[in-house]
């Protein structure tokens, strides 16, 4: 399988008066063709910043980024090239559409900017993609405020897909929708993936949604990945205390483990992160060693975890069952 996206130790540090803010702090991951990688974490952990680096609206300050094996550059031609490979859909379906343009115009814009096709062929392409996402010619003439939240999100998806990208970054794409509509949009995304061979980077704070849609899951904490593996491995065999806490935070979850920690306090400041393991300030298993060295991602059992005591915690979980 060929990788659509590869990042290697990707970093984005903002300069602040109190020191560097490590929004993204060394993220290495790959997304294969046709694969969905789910990215979970609390707000402020750097998920969206990572997404913005991948689509090119923020520039990483360190590390490598390759899209379809090419390192994207800054020039206009490179920007357009990148746009044809990676697109993004956003959380708030009303803010993501220009309120003064018709739906047709909104979906046509990417083609126009890229200079693809004639006026007539663009019209055709727009109608075709609109049908694929479940909109009709009727919707194309409407203004965004005349549509429902779910329909607006479909417009966003159509706009993102009209350039035939290989990778779609979905930043909390269903979080603002009603639960019933959420399911529709998720299923639409799954259908489109099958039909078009798309890859997704699916970002959400909702572990249950991510589990449903993802092939693999990456759990992010304070700019770093703390657990990474196949969706069911991470879900069922979760080893990092942070992942356990996230699952435990889901109300009414049958899979919940009895002694798993409930998260307390806030995410520490990414300007001055704790020494050693960044999670140790909220971790029930924290010991002296955690403050000394930072755990790197390593293979433990079925998948990768960044915790010094992953084996021990795994044994405890196994004993508990």
């Amino acid at each position, binding site marked *: 399988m060929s990788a659509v996206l590869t990042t290697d130790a990707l970093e984005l540090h903002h300069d602040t008066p109190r020191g560097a803010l490590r929004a993204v702090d060394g993220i290495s991951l790959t997304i294969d063709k046709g694969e969905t990688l789910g990215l979970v974490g609390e707000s402020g952990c750097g998920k969206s910043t990572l997404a913005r680096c991948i689509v090119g*609206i923020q520039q990483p300050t360190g590390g490598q980024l390759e899209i379809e094996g090419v390192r994207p550059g800054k020039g206009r031609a490179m920007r357009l090239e990148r746009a044809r490979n990676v697109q*993004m859909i956003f959380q708030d379906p009303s803010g*993501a559409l220009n309120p003064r343009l018709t739906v047709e115009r909104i979906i046509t814009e*990417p083609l126009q900017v890229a200079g693809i096709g004639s006026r007539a062929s663009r019209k055709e392409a727009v109608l075709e993609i609109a049908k694929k996402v479940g909109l009709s010619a009727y919707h194309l003439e409407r203004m965004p405020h005349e549509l429902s939240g779910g329909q607006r999100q479909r417009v*966003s998806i159509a706009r993102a897909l009209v350039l035939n990208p290989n990778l779609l970054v979905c930043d909390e794409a269903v979080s603002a929708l009603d639960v019933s509509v959420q399911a529709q949009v998720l299923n639409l995304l799954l259908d489109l993936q099958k039909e078009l061979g798309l890859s997704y980077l699916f970002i959400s704070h909702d572990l249950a949604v991510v589990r449903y849609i993802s092939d693999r899951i990456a759990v992010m904490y304070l700019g770093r990945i703390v657990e990474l593996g196949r969706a069911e491995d991470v879900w069922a065999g979760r080893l990092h205390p942070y992942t356990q806490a996230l699952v435990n935070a889901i109300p009414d979850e049958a899979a919940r483990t009895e002694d798993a920690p409930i998260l307390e306090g806030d995410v520490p400041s990414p300007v001055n992160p704790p020494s050693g393991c960044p999670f140790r300030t909220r971790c029930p298993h924290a010991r002296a060693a955690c403050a000394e060295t930072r755990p790197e991602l390593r293979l433990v059992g079925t998948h990768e975890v960044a915790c010094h005591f992953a084996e021990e915690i795994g044994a405890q979980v196994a004993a508990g069952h």
Partner: protein
Amino acid sequence: MTLTLFRRLLRHPSGLVGLLLLALVLAMSLTAGWLFPDGPWTMAGPPRAWPGADPRFPLGTDSFGRDLVASIFYGSRISLMVGVSAAGVALVVGIIVGAVAGYFGGWVDDTLMRITDAFQTIPNFLLSIAIVGIIGASIGTITFAIAIVAWPMIARLVRADVLRLRTYDFVQSCKIIGMSDLRIIFQQILPNCMAPIIVTASVLVANAIVVEASLAFLGLGDPNVMSWGTVLNIGRQELRSGWYITAVPAVALVVTVMSLNLIGDALNDVLNPRLKERT
């Protein structure tokens, strides 16, 4: 869109009154040459004829025997022209400065906003007087002098709106598809902040008319054109004996400025989608 806006304006009470008054002033400026072919400067009758004293001069004559009705008709041309063109120049400069500062941020924003601040710290009217005093009084320089003190207000207004809008996802999305910055600013962002700009524009025109009249009143008007300020200036010397010479152009000014303010109020209501039901 413009047509429906106009219709909604007509349905708004203060919009209707404002538009009617403005139409009256506009009609005056359009018919001036046809009704008074001799121009505003000819001595048409005896000097200092009070309004009504001579049926040929319903508003009287000034100290040189010039018909005040003709003066007011011709003056409306200058007032409207200076008002609209000064506001136009201020809008163009203010929108460009504000949009560029708000969109790009950083040092661009800092530089442009310090320049804007510099203009705003100088009392507006004094600056206009100084400019006209230095480069001389003509319609062009007066328009320039009014515009140069008016644009900072527009720039600040536009900047604030662009700052808000540039964080919207639809702007981010345009960046992702590779749209150029200029196109994002002018095609995507600015159409979304037209409402406050349009409302301010009407007030800007009114303000420009007042400033032009004030300059002329102080003797800094273009000596070659008859504006309402020119009549005010003539009337100033006769204030004790013939106050009507001052009162006539003053009423014209009040009516015009009021009509523009009424239109501004109405536009504010009409363009505010949340108040749409109220009208």
